[in-house]
């Protein structure tokens, strides 16, 4: 993926570092020249000096071919402008850091995925989209229900247990199991879960983190 990170502060820098480590193509845009030089040195390039609120800067960064933009400056108004202009230029996914949680509603209304503070939270959002991730959102149903696919890792706390033995959050249901060979099965209480199984689970949006912990176990940064 080509990912543009707007804002080279602490959040932007560490986010870029992680994404580069995951072999994405990354460009950080930073408007302060001293900071840009610092980030350039630490990231061996991958930095552009400029104001990401300006359409011309985003164009110079090749925004039209970006798969995702993460607007992580310290100003919510700048992050909104960056995301809205990027989407206008055709970027399919926009993620904004929100510094004031009260602003979340506006970002939602504008169709921007949001995250409140912390690099880790931004990362978690991006990782949801990556195929290597173990929990993939499939479909949002109405009434706050969500359909997700969860691939059980070797370290899954439920591997080897039967469906009956797994304690899921309220209103959560394992509706389908696809084994590593690609064969789908309707689970019963006696069905045994094994590592490598892909489970299609219906759950409430707010229970997803608990669900992840129960089926996948703690992953970095998500158990905080």
């Amino acid at each position, binding site marked *: 993926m080509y990912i543009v990170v707007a804002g080279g502060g602490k959040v932007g820098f560490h986010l870029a570092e992680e994404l580069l480590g995951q072999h994405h193509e990354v460009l950080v845009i930073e408007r302060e020249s001293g900071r840009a030089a610092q980030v350039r040195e630490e990231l061996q390039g991958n930095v552009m000096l400029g104001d990401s*609120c*300006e*359409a*011309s800067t985003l164009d110079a960064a090749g925004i039209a071919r970006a798969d995702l933009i993460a607007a992580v400056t310290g*100003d*919510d*108004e*700048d992050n*909104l*402008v960056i995301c*809205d*202009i990027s989407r*206008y230029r055709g970027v399919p996914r926009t993620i904004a850091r929100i510094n*004031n949680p*009260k*602003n979340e*509603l*506006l970002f939602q*209304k*504008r169709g921007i995925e949001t995250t409140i503070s912390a690099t880790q939270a931004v990362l978690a959002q991006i990782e949801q989209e990556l195929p290597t991730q173990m929990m993939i959102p499939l479909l949002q149903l109405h009434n706050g229900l969500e359909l997700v696919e969860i691939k059980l890792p070797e370290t899954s706390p439920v591997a080897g247990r039967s469906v009956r033995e797994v304690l899921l959050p309220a209103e959560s249901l394992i509706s389908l199991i696809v084994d590593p060979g690609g064969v789908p099965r309707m689970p019963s209480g006696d069905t045994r879960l094994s590592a490598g199984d892909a489970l299609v689970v219906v759950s409430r949006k707010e229970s997803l983190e608990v669900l992840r912990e129960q089926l996948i176990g703690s992953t970095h940064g998500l158990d905080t």
Partner: protein
Amino acid sequence: MNVVVMGCGRLGARIAGILDAEGHSVTVLDSTEGAFRRLPDSFRGKKAVGNGMDGPTLEKIGIAEADCFLALTQGDNRNYFASQMAREVYHVSRVLCRVYDPIREEIFRDLGLETFSPTSFGANILLDMLRKEPVRK
């Protein structure tokens, strides 16, 4: 008409003064108290100190009852943010937004706002003047 003007600079103060004199109900919002000195002495509207990008502040000054919101601070991004808030969250029917940067102004207009760029407007007027005969010798 119930109007909220965000930003009491020269333009904000002037518009607020005119609308107030015409009998409209006007509330002026600015982050600094000192800005209100630009309002005419005859101004009878409300003056509120606060940040127009803050939901609770907007609610306190009655944004929900406003017919019109004018975003006239010095910051293009601030104006855009507050305008979208007035439109998307508080459903104000007319939202006018000043944007200095002509490129951003066009984009913001396409994104649903009524925008105005003093830069492109001013440039056009000046170019027009240049191309005509001088008014005064």
